């Protein structure tokens, strides 16, 4: 039973800890602390936890295997989201040159016509992506699992990975040198708020990161302010519920040993709806940004990661687009 004690101790809110929504809302009061400790910083014991993991970060069969597997789903999420939301027709395209986008479901159409419309749209998407040169920022890049993947995509112009753990960044840099293809990639030991605010990005990613920082709302705000119009902020974190505790802490850390013990703290999980509400809560924010897509996901030991239909339970990915 000893093994369970740690897990059970982690269940249920602890005293004096601000939870999800409150943590999100408490950004304004955090201004004072920013001079000494970064708002985006993770707590000290979490930092040492990640430093200890640096050496095994890139061992795909090692302790971070589940993260490597999750990266496959992350890249699918990013790729399909960007692809599906490309603007196929420029505003002033003459009608005869327009790519046909029916206002109704394609499944109503006969197969040959449907296939032609789809292939026409897909070709146009390839064409647009072929010309795209997007700038990406990976916040909390860790050992660079996602950062490297972004840097290999043909439509990405450059990627910057930032993190606050120098050890994992070192692991990232050593690994980058092993692949001569990774020329569009650059790492910096920096917090997001220390990046010049006029540096704007097409894609900002914060995967498995918000649940580790003390003031997630501040981090989100910093990210949203740095995204270009039409650009994307991709985040993933974990709902604060029993299922998450059961899968990520009890099973993941303590019983199946899939993730190193101490990786997660339930109190720091943020519900999907809390982020949506937070964006809606401010009129300026809700006008500029929109949650376009949110998907739940689950890890099945023999299979890998898989999307679920419910983003309100367990882990989830979210795509926020800047409209204005």
């Amino acid at each position: 039973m000893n093994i369970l004690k740690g897990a059970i101790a982690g269940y249920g809110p602890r005293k004096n800890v601000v939870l999800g929504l409150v943590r999100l809302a408490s950004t304004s009061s955090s201004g004072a602390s920013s001079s000494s400790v970064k708002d985006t910083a993770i707590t000290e014991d979490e930092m040492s936890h990640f430093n200890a993991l640096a050496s095994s970060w890139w061992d795909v069969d090692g302790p971070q295997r589940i993260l490597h597997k999750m990266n496959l789903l992350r890249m699918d999420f990013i790729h399909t989201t960007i692809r599906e939301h490309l603007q196929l027709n420029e505003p002033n395209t003459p009608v005869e040159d327009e790519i046909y986008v029916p206002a109704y479901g394609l499944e109503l159409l006969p197969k040959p016509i449907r296939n032609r419309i789809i292939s026409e749209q897909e070709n146009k998407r390839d064409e647009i992506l072929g010309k795209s040169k997007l700038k990406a920022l990976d916040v909390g890049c860790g050992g660079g699992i996602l950062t490297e993947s972004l840097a290999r995509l043909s439509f990405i112009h450059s990627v910057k990975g930032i993190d606050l753990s120098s050890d994992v960044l070192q692991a990232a840099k050593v690994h980058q040198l092993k692949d001569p293809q990774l020329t569009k990639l650059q790492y910096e030991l920096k917090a997001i708020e220390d990046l010049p605010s006029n540096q704007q990005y097409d894609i900002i990613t914060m995967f498995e990161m918000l649940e580790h920082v003390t003031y997630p709302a501040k981090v989100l705000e910093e990210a949203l302010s740095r995204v270009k119009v039409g650009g994307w902020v991709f985040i993933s974190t974990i709902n604060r519920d029993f299922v998450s505790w059961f899968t990520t802490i009890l099973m993941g850390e303590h019983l199946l040993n899939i993730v190193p013990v101490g990786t997660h703290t339930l109190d720091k999980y943020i519900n999907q709806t809390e982020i949506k509400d937070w964006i809606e809560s401010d009129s300026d924010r809700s006008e500029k940004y929109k949650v376009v897509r949110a998907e739940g996901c689950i890890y099945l030991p023999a299979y890998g990661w898989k999307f679920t239909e419910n983003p309100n339970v367990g882990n989830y990915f979210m795509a926020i687009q800047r409209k204005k």
Partner: protein
Amino acid sequence: MLFKRLLATAAKSVQGPVLQDVVIIGGGPAGLSLLAALKSSSITRNLKCTLVEGSSLEGIREFADSPPEEYTNRVVSLTPKSVEFMQSKIGNWEFMNQDRIKFYNNIIAYDSQDRTSRIVFDGSAIEAGFLAVMAENVNIQSSLLQRISQLKEEGVDSTILDNTKVLSIGSALKEAEAASESTNIMSENVATASDWPIVNLSDGSSIQTRLLVGADGFNSPVRKYAGIQSRGWAYDRFGVVATVKLQYEDYRSIGWQRFLTTGPLAILPLTEDNATIVWSSTPELSEILIACDEQIFPELVNAAMTLDEVSLNFIYAKLKKNPNDFSVLDDIPWRQSRLKVNDLEENYPLPVTEVVPGSRARFPLKLSHADTYTSARIALVGDAAHTVHPLAGQGLNMGQGDVQALVEAIEKGVTRGMDIGSTLVLEPYTSNQWPGNHVLMGVCDKLHKIFSTDWYPIVFLRGFGMKNLNMLDFVKDMMIKNISGR
């Protein structure tokens, strides 16, 4: 002096290994298919690819413009699935010499121990409308080379190095590991050394590659480099192949297969009066088949397709003493005369009249299957991954299936921005392809074993099985769909 030394170092750095994304070892149908498929896919065509082949491909290049008059003896059957892959994904089908391929719709398999047990497979049940296509290996390879050239003309570049042998394969990581092991000091180099395989070639150059693919046959050096175990056994049987002429063109387009205790004998139709035979036989019999006179061989095939095993053993014994014993030419028709003419015409293949000189060859039969098709920066396809008994004509098709699954895995890896040498990208190829291949190989192996006995209870049971199976059309359709890959 100094200037000279500078020049020397400059030259050395120029000579460092060439970097590639994919290096394919082996220019057989599997290796060439992989290169052509990677270059045909809009997702993977930007990968830098090199194919290395030890022998010359000149003969195959010549086939395109001046094919030999007679069929070559290495003929394979392609399933509808393989054909579709070549048509829609690789795009080499249009370059096949269409006068030298033969579609067929039926296979009749029958038992030498039990005259009444036979099974008829009809390909019209499947969507493709045909059961298989017979094509020469060289025709397939030639079409792939032409497709690769066509892609080059369109600006999609790739490199083929033929007449180039692989001298050794290594990697900086393996060297660093060996060094730290011998000195017992954990070297810093182990953490920073690249694990990309370096292939050293007989022309003095070397290539360092993100992904190394072994399409290098049964004795695959790539498989040995990766330390992947391959398990299996030799059958103590040889496959004898030959190109033969039938009495006249067989318009029925039926593939015939007779299960003899020495192994199955198949006659598969080609265009006009041509046909190819694959005769699995004991080492002893295979020697007779290779040694006997060109006049005797066709009659021997006819005998093995029609006569009972007692008669056959009598004839084999005569030929064993003297492979040119022409008295068997009288024996065989006399023994066949006991069969009814109607029966012979309807239920047996057309008589073989001659064998194309020099087309007879034999090769040992074995089963082998690699434990996995992938490890870090390594993938195996085709015979490097598996060899199978030829009785169901699946060998080359399994290789095509491998190529298709590997290309899909790589496409997915590129779309996800992954390092395509990573096991995270390659593992799905093994998990998608290995189990199906394993089942298929098991079925072929069991068929061989069930039919290579004349022990009565087994003969009775297999006869019972075949007769019943022949009546159950839906089971047969299911089997056809499996065999044809649909």
